[in-house]
């Protein structure tokens, strides 16, 4: 089937839907998702969305700007950070008007709580900046945006898997897509295509990310010659449920929870004397891993405790109900009576598809844009998060830059001509899919996936070093070779999830290579990228963004200077 739209949006999370609402004011919009829109992983975001509303105590966008820059370990581009923090208040008010059911203060204003790395007076003390809807903030915003996009007449295509994004002569003309239910190939011709396909935490063994978070579109674009920026910067959230990786919101510490090691010490006091347990995620994750490595895990094991027992029961019930339920269901414990066993979990990709501040995808480190191609949300790298994202800034990023991309698209499609994807790419995709569905090798996708995710976790997670990364790069080559022999049992066209999982595995490994190689290049420690062999930040040589390009000779690297407008790099202490 062949479709024509002014705007094609891939992904129905917060960034995609916010862009869809904006773009639908200017023309026809199709939103594709491999799930259903309400099932997008934005819905799993718990703790909040940041904005200096000042509803609970004085706050300012300037402080937010400073915290985000410092949180990014000065790798964030300050033009973009400034835009985001300046636009935050308007964004939250707009979301509220769209119907987001935020939790409230006694006066009826949007309630706010503390979150890691968000401070008043440039680092003096934690500040209440996180706007929340209990611990289901992502869910509340996702539903409101989905509902408003429906009201705007946005056409959504659930369970449609993107197979290729077509870029010809420096211009994007749409995508080739599999209707999962029927197995039919659809061609979506569009003047503008926005990639808002989310994260790829499934690269790692332990992750808070959904099974669907496999980074398909990043991998497709990477293969198509688009660079990937700062892929070495991957965030490990300090508090994943032990053994499962399920997220326990930083809001738990924002409401007073503390981290405790096996000796009963509140160890964050040693690592971040001023804001302690509310230090940024990279520092807390490193602290936890250090405690465990030095033998201070609980019962000598590889976890620490998140203790909420001293927090008012009513606060836990009202503001943290969801994580309490997770603890009860999966661990059989009540957080108001037992400490929660936690361990860092792969959570958020700071890196991704490079864009300018209006979502235009960059084709190189010099700023050349690809006509008609946009990206926003976790898959994109603006970069507002640099080497480490602050909690609550991801939801803000999706909505602020989703809207800006939608507005830019609105301007672009007015004068852009109709697109028509040529037959060539479509024939190629059909042939690829046929080959895959008929493959009879004896490798199993599931087994390879487990092996791959484990090697990424072992050698490329919270701590990294030259030896581990170099070995990893070699092993990734081997495993990539083995994926050629993955056998598929299901030969059916309809709802062939075995085929989809094989495709996703290829994408995951493709991104794994970009992450490992980018990490091997960056010979310093900055934010979430922590090299044991280069433990210091090196502004002289590495205050720059990594751009990885896939070429015929393998992955090659070029670099782009960081945009600094307001805050000079300084020592990062909390």
């Amino acid at each position, binding site marked *: 089937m062949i479709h024509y739209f002014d705007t094609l949006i891939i992904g129905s999370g917060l960034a995609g839907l916010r862009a869809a609402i904006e773009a639908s004011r200017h023309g026809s919009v199709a939103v594709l998702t491999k799930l259903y829109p309400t099932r997008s992983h934005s819905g799993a975001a718990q703790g909040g969305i940041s904005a200096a509303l000042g509803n609970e105590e004085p706050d300012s966008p300037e402080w937010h700007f400073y915290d985000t820059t410092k949180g990014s370990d000065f790798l964030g581009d300050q033009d973009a950070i400034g835009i985001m923090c300046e636009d935050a208040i308007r964004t939250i008010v707009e979301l509220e008007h769209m119907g987001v059911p935020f939790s409230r203060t006694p006066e009826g204003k949007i309630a706010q709580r503390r979150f890691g790395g968000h401070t008043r007076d440039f680092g003096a003390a934690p500040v209440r900046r996180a706007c929340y809807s209990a611990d289901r903030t992502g869910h509340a915003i996702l539903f409101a945006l989905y509902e408003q996009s429906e009201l705007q007449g946005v056409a959504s295509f659930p369970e449609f898997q993107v197979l290729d994004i077509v870029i010809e002569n420096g211009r994007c003309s749409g995508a080739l897509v599999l209707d999962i239910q029927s197995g039919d190939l659809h061609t979506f011709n569009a003047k503008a295509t926005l990639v808002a396909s989310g994260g790829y935490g499934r690269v790692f063994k332990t992750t808070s990310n959904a099974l669907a978070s496999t980074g398909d579109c990043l991998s497709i674009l990477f293969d198509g010659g688009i660079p990937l920026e700062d892929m070495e910067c991957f965030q490990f959230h300090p508090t994943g449920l032990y053994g499962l990786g399920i997220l326990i919101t930083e809001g738990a510490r924002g409401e007073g929870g503390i981290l405790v090691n096996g000796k009963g010490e509140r160890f964050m006091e040693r690592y971040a004397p001023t804001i302690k347990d509310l230090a940024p995620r990279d520092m807390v994750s490193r602290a936890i891993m250090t405690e465990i490595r030095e033998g201070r895990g609980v019962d000598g094991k590889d976890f620490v405790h998140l203790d909420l027992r001293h927090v008012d029961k009513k606060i836990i019930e009202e503001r943290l109900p969801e994580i309490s339920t997770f603890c009860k269901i999966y661990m059989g414990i009540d957080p108001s009576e037992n400490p929660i066993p936690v361990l860092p979990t792969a959570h958020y990709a700071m890196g991704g598809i490079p864009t300018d501040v209006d979502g235009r995808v960059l084709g190189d480190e010099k700023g050349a844009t690809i006509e008609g191609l946009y990206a926003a949300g976790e898959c994109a790298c603006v970069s507002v998060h640099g080497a480490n994202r602050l909690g609550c800034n991801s939801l803000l990023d999706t909505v602020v830059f989703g809207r800006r991309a939608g507005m830019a698209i609105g301007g672009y499609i007015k004068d852009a001509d109709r697109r028509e994807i040529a037959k060539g790419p479509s024939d190629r995709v059909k042939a690829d899919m046929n080959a895959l569905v008929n493959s009879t090798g004896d490798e199993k996708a*599931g087994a390879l996936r487990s092996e791959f995710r484990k090697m990424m976790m072992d050698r490329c997670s919270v701590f990294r070093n030259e030896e581990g990364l170099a070995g990893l790069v070699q092993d990734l080559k081997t495993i990539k070779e083995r994926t050629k022999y993955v056998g598929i049992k299901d030969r*059916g066209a309809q709802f062939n999830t075995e085929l989809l999982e094989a495709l996703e595995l290829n994408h995951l490994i493709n991104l794994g290579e970009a992450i490992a190689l980018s990490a091997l290049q960056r010979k310093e420690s900055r934010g979430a990228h922590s090299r044991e062999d280069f433990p210091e930040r090196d502004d002289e040589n590495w205050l720059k963004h990594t751009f990885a390009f896939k070429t015929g000779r393998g992955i090659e690297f070029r670099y782009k200077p960081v945009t600094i407008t307001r805050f000079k790099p300084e020592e990062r202490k909390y």
Partner: protein
Amino acid sequence: MNNYTFRIKRFDPENDTVPRWEEFHVEMAPTERVLDGLIKIKDSVDGSLTFRRSCAHGVCGSCAMKINGKNGLACQTLIKDVSFSPDTVITLEPLPALPLIKDLVVDMAPFFEKNDKVLPYLINNEPPPERERLQSPEDQHTILQSITCIMCGCCTSSCPSYWADKEYLGPSALLKAYRFIFDTRDRSTEARLERVAQVHGLWRCHSIYNCVEVCPKEIDITGHIAKLKSLSVKKALSGRKSLKKK
């Protein structure tokens, strides 16, 4: 680790005319999820086994299915919750009352279409204030349960009234209507009530409570529908009074 038996209802639309049963044996810990079992089977025994899944911790609503006769989420049900001894068979079927596509996957379109009928979005055409619209914590609590719905479909597909009347809006859509009607910021109560207070709407609910029993988010859906019924009757009566006055 124990060896558990999964009995799964299978249907391949390209080869089967009717569903069939198949048994699988899986090594698992009792504290693992039913979804973990399905993934193990797919990864190591039969790659063609088909089911939906995504978040794996009860927030996205993808993996709703019938587990030992009762609708629930495979990712939120632990083996020990449904299998009291290693001999107990874990029986998995697709959600009932929705068109079957393949194995444990049903067509969710009829379910989502019901939702679209209740004006499922905040409507307020008054000029927006400069800052947020105020809402007291008490007023926010009135809609608190209803906003936690993840639209997994467990409720509607478990409802005998829905089984009997496929035009019935069903518990999930009615809960969505409640979510906006009782939101103090919304201004379309009348239009929404008109859409739900009809023979395939509110009055089709006979308070059977199946929906409440299966809801993975523990929402008192029947209670919410009762409040809508009560509001609808009040509105109808007050309408009659005002007619008399004229």
